[in-house]
């Protein structure tokens, strides 16, 4: 244990407005701390640079799941166990609960938050691929007001995002238009549980008469941050799922994916495996199509 608790401040303003006041008063000085499953690991390793922390855990305004007619809105401090337990999410956006079940262990899922996962911005983030293929939007708030952007525009670089120093990630908005889509999500880790992604692929698609009328693909660990695979999508959009199309998509993904070698895996492995995942997904679709 290399952290020194006395070297850090942690305060709990206790409400969302109070937190925003604090962030506005000293932009960039206060690091939000929600479930602690990232910050406390860095702390114990002696790598927590942030000296001042502001507590978000326990603020009711940040932990909610609301269903409207057009969307499901998830508060940033919603935990992964909360996500797994929610009936509407399970029914319409199953990849959310699926990725939530992969976050560490039950003990981590009870504390890790969706907002924390996104704000931390690891390229291997478990929740990101699903959010990307569900057209998630991120709502950020500050004393100045609130704004929403597509999640696909949230990350700008390795562990970097668009948030201003006085902004807080407030909620994730998910449109309720994917219930009829075909969903796919697979994570490849070092073991079945408690594993950081080597690579993961999420997909949602709509087929009409065997032709791809909508397709969204997203991956973890292929780039400095989780990304949509727009070029590969373009190759599939409007196409029937023939063998040629599958091969072409595989080739496109191979070219689009730019993973790296790191301590967990190799670039070559990641590329080949994500292409296999795509193939597995598309094969599953065309098999079902053929059997109709």
């Amino acid at each position, binding site marked *: 244990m290399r952290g020194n608790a006395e070297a850090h401040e942690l305060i709990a303003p206790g409400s969302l407005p109070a937190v925003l006041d604090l962030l506005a008063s000293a932009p960039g000085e206060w690091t939000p701390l929600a479930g602690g499953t990232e910050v406390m690991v860095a702390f114990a390793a002696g790598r927590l640079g942030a000296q001042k922390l502001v507590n978000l855990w326990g603020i009711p305004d940040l932990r909610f799941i609301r269903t409207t007619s057009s969307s499901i809105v998830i508060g940033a401090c919603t935990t992964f166990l909360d996500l797994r337990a929610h009936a509407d999410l399970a029914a319409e956006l199953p990849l959310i609960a699926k990725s939530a079940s992969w976050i560490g262990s039950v003990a981590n899922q009870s504390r890790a938050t969706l907002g924390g996962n996104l704000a931390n911005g690891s390229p291997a983030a478990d929740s990101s691929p699903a959010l990307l293929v569900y057209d998630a939007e991120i709502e950020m708030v500050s004393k100045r007001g609130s704004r929403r952007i597509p999640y696909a525009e949230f990350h700008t670089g390795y562990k970097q995002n668009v948030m201003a120093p006085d902004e807080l990630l407030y909620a994730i908005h998910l449109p309720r238009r994917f219930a009829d889509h075909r969903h796919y999500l697979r994570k490849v880790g070092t*073991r079945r549980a408690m*594993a950081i992604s080597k690579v993961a692929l999420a997909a949602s698609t709509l087929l009409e008469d065997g032709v791809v009328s909508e397709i969204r693909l997203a991956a973890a660990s292929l780039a400095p941050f989780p990304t949509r695979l727009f070029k590969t999508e373009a190759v599939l959009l409007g196409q029937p799922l023939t063998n040629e199309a599958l091969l072409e998509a595989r080739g496109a993904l191979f070219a689009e994916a730019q993973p790296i070698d790191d301590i967990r895996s190799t670039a070559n492995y990641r590329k080949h495996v994500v292409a*296999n995942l795509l193939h597995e997904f598309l094969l599953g679709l065309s098999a079902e199509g053929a059997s109709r």
Partner: protein
Amino acid sequence: MSTTAKTRIVGASAPRKEGADKLLGRALYIDDIEREGMWFGSTVRSTIPRGLIRSIGFDRRINWSDFTVVTAADIPGENHIQLIVADQPCLADGQVNHCDEAILLIAHPDKHKLRDAISAVHIEYETLPPIFTIEESEHRDQIVWGKDNLFKSFLLEKGNVDSVWESAAHIVEGEYRTGAQEHLYIENNGIIAEWSAENGVTVWGSLQCPYYVHKTLIKIFDLPDDKVRVIQTETGGAFGGKEDYPSTLASHAALLAMKSGHPVKMIYDRMEDLAATTKRHPSRTRHRTALDKDGKLLAMEIDLATDGGAYATLSSTVLSRATLHAPGPYSCPNVRIGAKAWATNNVPYGAFRGFGAPQTIFALERHMDEIASALSIDPLELRRRNFLHTGDTTATEQLMREPLIMDQLLDRALKESDYHTRRARFARENPTSAIKRGIGIACFYHGSGFTGSGERILNSLAGVDVSPEGKVRVMVSNTEFGQGTNTVLTQIAAEAIGIDYDDIIMAAADTGLVPNSGPTVASRTVMVVGRLIERAGLQLTATLREQAGLGDKFTREEFFAACERVRSAKGEVVSLVRYEAPPGIFWDDEKYHGEAYPSYAWSVHMAQVAVDTVTFSAEVEEYWAVQEVGRVLNPVLATGQIEGGIAQGIGYALYEKVVMQNGRMANNQMTNYIIPTAEDVPPIHVFFEEIPFKYGGYGAKGIGELPHDGPAPSILNAIKNATGVSFHSIPLLPEDLFAQLVARESAKEHATL
């Protein structure tokens, strides 16, 4: 005779002796303990793998007068850890030979002050070229140890291998490699030390061998035996990783205690423990095997090399066991094994469950499947044709006198696993499945106890005594760290004496209290020390009958009353016995010839593995282990040992990779040193056969290390069955499977062009 007679307690699953304390959270591990006025210590370590220390500077931002700082200059006696060769310094003195080598120690009353202080010590080095592989060491461009980088070499010869190469129907060669493996005991290394001029050195800690630590401390401090006391505390896992390393940590804590005048606690955090302490020796084994047209072994030539890291530690004895297990449970008239342990600038490697055998058994059992392919013989049949039987001799020409039932073990493994049905099903399903399944086997023995005359040299002393409060105490220096020492030895004592299990306790593993019954290693505890306790217990009751009027049958009250009569007469009630070697054990250490081990446990493992061609990951789906282990003294504990060893072996094969970068472990966190979780372990089926061993405690042989030998070869044999591709090296990660399988695909594509 005791080995086969009906027993009351031995053979039953008596509940774990210290189980209630562990379950209630009351068991005290070293970090749960505080001593009055205790300070905390930490270590300044080398950041380079090899070089000279040019200067040590102390940044003035720290108030150093509040700290105690210890260097090699503070060592009163010899600056060496006493293992086999006294080459490893307790603290580096002018030179470092591996990353994270201990250079300085610091202590302070506030543990939070230590991190900053460590980063305020500035060491300047003159770097020297490091070497990190067996091959670099063999080439001897850099000499990093002794005159020639060679810690140890053995040559084992039987018959004359060179007489058969020309005429042999088949010659098969292969090279096999194993990587390092980390113990990952869930409790990190920890010690508390105290020093006083009056009492000398006292240490408490997480350790396997109190007398090993004692042996080093008396030399470090130049103190007589009775001025050093070592006490084992509840130990949270060890697996060999706390056999030699605690001697270093205890020395460090004791030096700080001496210089500071305070008790000092040193507990490693996970990152430090992973980076700085011992691991399993990496190995390279080359096989060249001659067979006749029927697949009978004619000659085995084996070239074995291990990487010992920067200091000798236990490399010679690991090499010895590796050598003696290399030829496996097979009869072969001509054998030559050349074995060498090499020095590099890696962090020194040390003891780990199996102690060289997992390395060479992996090579052999993989090689047997390669031979089977080359000769187009079924891998089971190849083994049956070559199994050792009673009356055969091993590679050291040890005559197998005991009943040897490898065929029956194999039969049972095949039956319990429904091997043929499964294998046929996989052959049918694999071609059209993205998941390729296979089933593979490993057949092996594991020698129980110390090699050759090792036990004679240890000359263990052990026994029981009775306290006035009416408790019988088992007096041994052997320790509990999960494997069941406390439970089984007290079962044996209860059985031999004729009283209840609940009336026996273990004396603390405290060198100030118990005799030296040898280390808790080499799967010797129940067989060797158990036998001593059995004899001591029988001796106690015999004495009570002869001298205190105890009847043939007696109640609990009568027993303790008789003890008190002896105490009145003699002042104490104690029964100690010394080790007696079984007859017929002759071992020539020069020629590597004779009875290598007093007994062997025999085993057949079977692994069903699924290889996912989408992700290239291999997972063990189901596992069977059949073993003949002498007598099983506690079925639940014995089963738990087999299952735990198999889980570790599965990690060794498929998950656990020590990633070294410039001599430093780069993945020194639990998040990236990967062991199987509850979701990864397969169902494991354990079956025992029992042929009591006359000279083991109530007929027992050793079992602790046996199960770690089987998984790596059986799993990789299963992968070969599943994919048709042979892998020769572990850990076998998905990236490695991918590289070979995809390379194979491209080669096929090119071939068809």
